Structure formats: C-alpha cells, structure tokens
C-alpha cells in the first residue's frame, strides 16, 4: 500500500529569523510523501525570500495579514494530502514525528487525530530566563494540544470545521474542544516530537515571565464559555463532559 500524502502547513507572519530551521525540520522528516505549504500572513520582512530559496520543494501562498486561524484555514483549502499537519515558523519537529504518528493511524483505522508531547526550549539569548525555569513544569515535556503536534485526517476538518477566524488567539484550543465535543477519536503519543521555541517575541505571552497576557486570558475564558454553552444545548443542566486521552509518562526520543 502506498504511503498517504501528508500536507504540512506553516503559517508565518514576519518569521524570517527562525523559518528556515522550521522548514528544514519538515524536510528532514523520515516520512514521505509530504507537501509543504507556507502561508505568508502578510509578512513585511524577508519571509518570502526564505521560502523562495527552497525552490519547488515548498509551495508559497500569500494572504493580506489576517491572523493565524485564517492562515491555517487557507493552508487547509490548498492542501491535497489525505492527512494534514501544522508547524509554526519558530518551532521544530523531530525527524520521526510524522512517521510515528502515521504508524498509529495504520494501527487504528478509527483514529481521527494524533497529538504528541512537546518540549519548550529557549533561544541562547534567553539563557537567564531558561535557568530560572529549571525544574518548573514549563521546562518539562507536556501533552501538546497545539497545532504543532497535530496530525489529522484532512476529512476531519469537514466534520469539525476549520479554525475560528473570529479569534485572534486561542483558536487552536477552541478547535480541539470542538473536536472533543464531537467525540472525535484522539490519541496522545507519549513521545516528545515537537520543540517549541521560546524567544523574546512569542505571541500571547509576556517574555521574561512567560505569563499569559490579559488578552490571551480573556480569549481562553471566551473559548471555555463557548464550549460550555455548546455542551449545554437542549437545556441540559450539566454540560456533556469531554474525553481527552489519558496522559502517559513522556518519552524523550
């Protein structure tokens, strides 16, 4: 049986600094066939040139700046793979990320999506911050309900819908909640297959403290409220409980 095509979607806004490393981590995947689609969300830096240096290996699509959810949806609309995965322009996949995940789909035909553990890392300039976080929960592998870890059947997006473009942040959490509400079959791989880069300009956190901004907190509160409202439809007093995979001991690959 031929391997299924995986579309790898990379939304990017002014990401020239780390984009090349991210794209290289996709090209280094041990799994084939893949297609890589970069959605340039109206960047004003050298993002386009970085992508162009890869020639035909990467598809480049541009949209006027409209935020990550719209960029991800644009990528989905252009994707041709049976499966889709996402990577942010500052994060990294380990080489076996797609192989290990696709193996789970072969094993379990009922599986709709697979996420993995992820691990943050600090850029060298933030060594002091990294030292402060030694032993903190944040510096350890964590279950990754984020788009960077996600491998899903593309058809799943027809069922769950795309990312909510009315949300400037928190749209991935909203998407995972909508998926869980629909009883989507999920698996959480214990392997640490995604590395998230902490740098000075991470969207939605205050650098130095890594605290959520008030704007991000507000967005998450609205995401949770919307989920509760959906789960209490038909006048149910108690919202339908959600089922997420049970976390396991993380495995560093």
């Amino acid at each position, binding site marked *: 049986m031929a391997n299924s095509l995986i579309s790898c979607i990379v939304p990017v806004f002014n990401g020239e600094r780390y984009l090349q490393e991210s794209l290289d981590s996709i090209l280094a995947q041990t799994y084939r066939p893949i297609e890589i689609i970069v959605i340039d969300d109206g960047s004003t830096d050298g993002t386009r040139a970085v992508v162009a240096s890869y020639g035909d290996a990467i598809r480049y699509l541009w949209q006027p700046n409209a935020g990550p959810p719209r960029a991800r949806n644009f990528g989905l609309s252009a994707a041709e793979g049976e499966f889709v995965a996402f990577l942010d322009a500052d994060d990294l996949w380990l080489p076996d990320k797609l192989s290990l995940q696709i193996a789970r789909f072969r094993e379990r035909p009922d599986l709709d999506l697979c996420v993995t553990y992820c691990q*943050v890392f600090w850029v060298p300039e933030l060594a002091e911050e990294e030292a402060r976080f030694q032993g*903190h929960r*944040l510096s350890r592998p964590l279950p990754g309900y984020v788009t960077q870890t996600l491998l899903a059947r593309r058809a799943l997006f027809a069922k769950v819908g795309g990312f909510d473009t009315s949300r400037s942040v928190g749209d991935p959490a909203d998407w*995972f909640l909508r998926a*869980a509400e629909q009883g989507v079959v999920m698996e*959480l791989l214990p392997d640490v297959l995604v590395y998230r880069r902490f740098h000075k300009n991470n969207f939605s956190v205050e650098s130095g*403290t890594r605290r959520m901004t008030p704007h991000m907190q507000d967005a998450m*509160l609205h995401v949770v409220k919307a989920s509760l409202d959906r789960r209490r439809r038909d006048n149910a007093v108690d919202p339908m409980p*959600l089922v*997420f995979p049970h976390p396991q001991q993380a495995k560093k690959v």
Partner: protein
Amino acid sequence: MLSLQDCFRPREEEIASKVIDGEAILINLATGVYYSMDKVGALVWDLLQPGYNVEEVISAVTSRYDVTREQAEVDVRDLVEELLQENLVASTENGTTHTAEVTTEQQEKVPYEIPKLNIYRDMGDLLALDPPVPGLGDTPWKEPDESSK
C-alpha cells in the same frame, strides 16, 4: 469562620476569570481545572473581584434577589468557603480599592437560586498548556521546596 468584614479577592497570579453573559467563568491556569457560576454565584464573583467584603456582597444579593437575609448569608458564606477551598480566592486586607457603594436598587426582585460552583476537570492538559502556564510573577522564580533544603 470567616468574618463579614473580610474581603476575598481572586488569586490573579493563577486564576483567570470573567463574567460573560451573566456567567462567571474561572480557569486555574496552573492545573487547567475550570469553573462556572451563574446568577447569584456570578453576582458574588463580580463583587468579590473589586474588593467588596462579605457583608456588602450579602446586601447586594438580598437587594437583587427574593431571599431572606439569613438564607443569603448562609449561602454566600458557603460559596466563599468553597472558593477558598478550591484556591480561587485569597483573603485580603479589608476595605481595599473600591469606593462606590454597591448599588443594586431595583423595583422587582428576581427569583432566588442557591449559588453553585460548578467544577470541571475534563480539559486539564489543554487549558494548562495552550498557552504555557503562568504563575511566576515578576520576581525571579524559585523552586517550591528551595527554602526547606
């Protein structure tokens, strides 16, 4: 036993909260446990946040809802105890920042329901990760057991 003059403010370093469409939504960002309170519970939360004391909260409840003072006091006390137990609020200095009196004058009182704190533990990993946990404050972070070593 808590005093009627006590104030209990949200533990903002870990708790995100907001009253949305009349329902208080609270998230413990360190654990991913989330909470909801509607009607009376949402009113109580709305008043605790700016620093009204328990007595003022009870007065607001009795002036808005069709309930006796005795019943309201028991229920507000129970709710505050539960908020404390869940580590959502902490006792603060009395008579803090608010200046305006609680104004809840209205002609007709609303039917009363005992306030309830709903607790949900079904999305812990998701809410505690995306985005990363806060809780470090602006001072350099230390190991919890560092002082005991």
